[in-house]
C-alpha cells in the first residue's frame, strides 16, 4: 500500500481524525428504522453508515435445508456500489462472502437457536457507506436488529476493532488507519459472558502486543455495548410514548 500520509498519529498522540488512541469514533444508533423487517437498526460509526434487517424466525425454503433441532441463521453482508471510493459491482465479492460467514458465526452464539427448530432467521446487512471496520459495525447493528425482532438472546453482541498504527495501539481504526497501519484486529464480544464470538487479525503483532490489542478491543466492545443498550431503551421509550398517546 502506498502511503498517502507520512504520519497517521502526530506528536500530540492525536490521530488524523482528531481522536486519541483509545477513543471510539462518534457513534449514532437507531433501532426499528425499517417498517417491513421484523427487526431493524441503523448505525453511523464515523463515516460508516450501515443498515441491518432481520426477518424470522420463518419457514425455510427449500425444506431440506432446515435443521431438525435449531433455527438456521442466514446472513448476508452486502455493500452498495456507492459505499466506497471506486464503484463496487453489486454482485457479492469473495470478501463479502467471507465476512457474511464470520458475522453469522459471530452472532449465532448469542441466539437461542434451539427455540426455533426447522426455521430460518435471516439477517441482512447493507453497507451504505464504508470507512473501515464495517464488519464490526455490521455485527453491532445486526445484533440490535435481532433484539428488535424479539429474538431471545444470551446477550447483545458488541464488536470493535483495535490495532497498531505508527507503532501505537489504537482503538476502532478507520479506513486509512486500517489500510496503512500495521495491524487490525476485529473483535466481537458478548460482554456479559466475556465470550469472544469473532476474532480475526491482519498484520504483525508480537504476543505481548496481541494481548494488549485484545484488551483494548475488549474495552471498545464494552463501550459499544452501553450504546447498544441506550438505543434499545430509546426505541422502547418511543414505542411506549406512542402507545400511551393513543
Amino acid at each position, binding site marked *: 500500500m502506498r502511503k498517502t500520509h507520512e504520519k497517521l498519529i502526530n506528536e500530540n498522540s492525536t490521530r488524523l481524525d482528531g481522536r486519541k488512541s483509545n477513543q471510539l469514533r462518534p457513534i449514532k444508533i437507531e433501532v426499528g428504522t*425499517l*417498517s*417491513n*423487517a421484523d427487526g*431493524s437498526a441503523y448505525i453511523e460509526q464515523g*463515516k460508516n*453508515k450501515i*443498515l*441491518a*434487517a432481520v*426477518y424470522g424466525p*420463518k419457514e425455510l425454503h427449500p425444506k431440506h435445508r432446515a435443521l431438525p433441532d435449531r433455527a438456521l441463521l442466514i446472513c*448476508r453482508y*452486502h455493500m*452498495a*456500489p*456507492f*459505499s*466506497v*471510493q*471506486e*464503484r463496487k459491482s*453489486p*454482485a457479492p465479492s469473495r470478501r463479502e462472502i467471507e465476512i457474511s460467514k464470520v458475522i453469522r458465526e459471530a452472532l449465532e452464539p448469542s441466539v437461542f437457536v434451539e427455540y426455533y427448530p426447522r426455521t430460518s432467521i*435471516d439477517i*441482512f*446487512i*447493507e453497507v*451504505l*457507506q*464504508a*470507512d473501515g471496520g464495517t464488519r464490526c459495525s455490521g455485527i453491532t447493528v445486526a445484533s440490535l436488529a435481532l433484539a428488535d425482532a424479539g429474538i431471545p438472546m444470551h446477550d447483545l453482541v458488541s464488536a470493535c476493532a483495535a490495532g497498531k498504527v505508527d507503532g501505537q495501539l489504537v482503538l476502532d481504526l478507520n479506513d486509512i488507519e486500517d489500510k496503512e497501519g500495521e495491524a487490525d484486529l476485529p473483535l466481537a464480544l458478548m460482554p456479559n459472558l466475556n465470550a469472544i464470538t469473532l476474532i480475526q487479525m491482519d498484520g504483525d503483532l508480537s504476543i505481548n502486543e496481541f494481548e494488549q490489542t485484545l484488551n483494548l478491543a475488549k474495552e471498545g466492545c464494552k463501550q459499544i455495548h452501553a450504546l447498544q443498550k441506550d438505543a434499545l431503551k430509546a426505541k422502547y421509550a418511543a414505542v411506549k410514548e406512542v402507545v400511551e398517546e393513543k
Partner: protein
Amino acid sequence: MTSSITVARVKQKRIAELISHGKRLDERGLNDFREVQLEVGVIERAEGSARVRLGKTEVMVGIKIEIGEPFSDVPNQGVLTVNAELVPLASPKFEPGPPNENAIELARVVDRGIRESKAISTEKLCIIPGKKVFIVFVDLWVLNHDGNLIDASAMAALAALLNTKIFNYEIKDDEIKIKPGYTQLPIVDHPIAVTFAKIDDNFVVDPWLVEEQVMDARFTITIDKDGKICALQKGGYGYFSMEKILEAAKIAQQKAEELRKIVVKG
C-alpha cells in the same frame, strides 16, 4: 381454492369498493401522493446521493462517476448506466441474487425517463472524443418497499443527479490529470414519473403496497419539465381503455409539476 386466495379476494373487493366511492384505505384522495421526504448528499463517498421516503417506501440512490470509453456510435457523449437492486432487507418478498425482471424493469423505466428527457447533457461528459468519457452510474438501492418503487426511485435518481459533482481535470499529452475542485453534473431537464394503479375500473395515483397487491395493472407516465411525456410503461396483467389512459396523462402532468417542486428545490 386456498383460503389465502379467498382472503386476497375479499381484500381486493373492499379496496375496490372504497375506491369506487373516491376513498382509499389510508385515507388519501385518489389523486394524492403520500408525503415525500428528501435528503441529499447523505453519502459523502459518492459523487451524488439522495434518500427519498414516499410514505414508508424508501429508496437510496448513489451516483458514482468513472472514466471509461464511449459507445462507438456516439463517440462524443458520456454514458449513463442505471442499476436497481431489490435488496432482501427491504421486503420479505425480495431475495438475494442478481436483479430479477422486476429490478431490471425498475432500472430501465427510471433510465428511460432520464435518457428520453435528455436530462443529462451527455455531450458535456466527453473528455477525449471517441476515447474517454465520463460514465454516470446511478444505483437505485431500495431500502423499504411499501409500494410505488418507480416514482420513489425516479425522484431519488433525479435528486441525486442534481446533487452530483464531478472532479475537475485537464488533459496533458492525452493523459487526464485531476485538478482541485468540482463541477456540477450538467442536468438540464427534470423528469418526474407518476404511476397509477388500476383497481377494478378506477385509477389511483401512487399506489402503496396493499393497493399494488390487489391492482389489475399499473401505468407509469414520465413527464419532462415542459409538461411533455417522455416515457410510458404499463405493468401487470390487466388492461386499460384509451379514455383512462388519456385521463391519466392529464393528471400526471399536474402531479409531476407538484413533485418536481419538491425534488428540484431539495
